[in-house]
């Protein structure tokens, strides 16, 4: 078994503009995903939107700089994640295909294997 991080990216303005009906359809689809994935879901959360982010990094002189906003200020924002445990990539691909963001047009899911430290 191996662990995979599913990173859900999309256009935040489209997410913010969702109607109540669209929002509940989205949540129902995530519930279906959790149901199908079962114990393979190790964790997962929806994130507050990118403007709520705070980024901390070192400046040239070694001091810490705190800035407002996400690390990468892109149109496609990280909206949420799941941590899954699965046998192989095909198993993850089959499950990830159930996520509504895969078919929304403006969003998608990046699958990253997690480093195994023994």
């Amino acid at each position, binding site marked *: 078994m*191996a662990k995979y991080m599913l990173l859900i990216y999309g256009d935040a303005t489209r997410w913010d503009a969702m109607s109540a009906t669209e929002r509940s359809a989205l949540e129902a689809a995530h519930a279906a995903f959790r149901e199908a994935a079962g114990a393979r879901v190790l964790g997962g959360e929806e994130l507050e939107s990118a403007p709520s982010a705070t980024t901390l990094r070192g400046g040239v002189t070694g001091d810490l700089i705190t800035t407002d906003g996400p690390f990468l200020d892109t149109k496609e924002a990280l909206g949420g994640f799941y941590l899954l445990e699965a*046998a*192989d*990539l*095909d198993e993850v*691909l*089959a499950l990830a295909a159930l996520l509504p963001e895969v078919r929304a047009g403006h969003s998608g899911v990046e*699958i990253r*294997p997690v480093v*195994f430290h*023994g």
Partner: protein
Amino acid sequence: MNEDVVAAVAAAHRRDWAQVLATTAQLTRDLDLAEECTQDAYAQALLVWPDSGVPARPGAWLTQVARNRARDVLRRESRFRRTLPLLVAEETVPGPEDGLVADDRLRLLFTCCHPALAREAQVALTLRLVCGLSTAEVARAFLVPESTMAARITRAKKKIATARIPYRVPSSDQLGERVGAVLQVVHLIYTTGHTAPSGPELIRPDLSGCAVDLARLLHLLMPTDAEVSALLALLLLNDARAAGRVGPDGRLRLLAEQDRSTWDTELIAEGAALLTDALRRGPPTRYAVEAAIAAVHAEARTWEETDWAEIVALYTVLQRMWPHSPVVQLNRAAAIGMRDGPRAGLDALTPLLREPALATYSYLSATHADFLRRLGDWPAAAVAYEEALTLTGNEVERAFLTDRLTEVRRHLP
């Protein structure tokens, strides 16, 4: 070195490489180690066979040697290897109820063509691992330096291990969506072998032969899939005519000049039957239409008998299916030139001269040159032949274009 043995090892390399590697990978769960052991087994054959004689089943012998070698390495490195990500392999062989052919080569092919790998990586891995070409040979086929190709292959193998791309034929519910990429890779390997982008030979039979073998294997796996049948038909209908494309003098023979008695009538019949089957099973797909065009050529007994009206009609269908392919438009223009004469062909081709995707495509210049030559526009034809020559890396094609250029220049003041 005994020449018979060298020939037998070469034949076993062509025929059995993928099977030996695939079966060894099943044991090692590590493509690099499997590759190393497979290479060792072939080196061992060169040493041992001159004395022992060529075994009755060379593939089985090579597999045995490669697997023994793998077991030795695994035993020695067992502690170290346990910490590395392993190739995800199937523990059980699928039973007949799966309706799948349990062939290790197919497992390897589907792993190499997994959609999580970039197309160029899929092609490189398939040629290296499934077809057994050396990295240098793969690099030469795609006109990249060997170090670039080696890095590409290493990166792809690393991704298979770290992302755990499984080592198996996809389950029947995933097979349909996965087979498309495999067919594209096989088709690309074939076309690269059909006219080598560079080098002294027109055809690279190591590439085209491997593609035909893989298409046959896929057809065994999915005998009722129309797209698979159509691709195999297309490759066979082209391959059947390969022997006629170069004359005994080593020079390029255009279709009009080919000795049609060199064509393989059995392959043509097999390809035509597969095409008929594919068309019966569903609406025509891209490969089916291309195969139909190849069939019209293959089934014409003489050049004069070629049904150009039919070929233009088929290209029109292809253009509708694939509206953004300038190569299809170019082929259609060439066919129009055959049906209605060079003036009509030139009119159909002229808009393509502004097409950026074809800016370095030698067949555009060569076709343009041919129309101008047939119209007697010698200065323009000479310019177009010169342009085609700068864009062509294949020496057989270069010799042909040089002859034409010389002929055209004779008419210049």
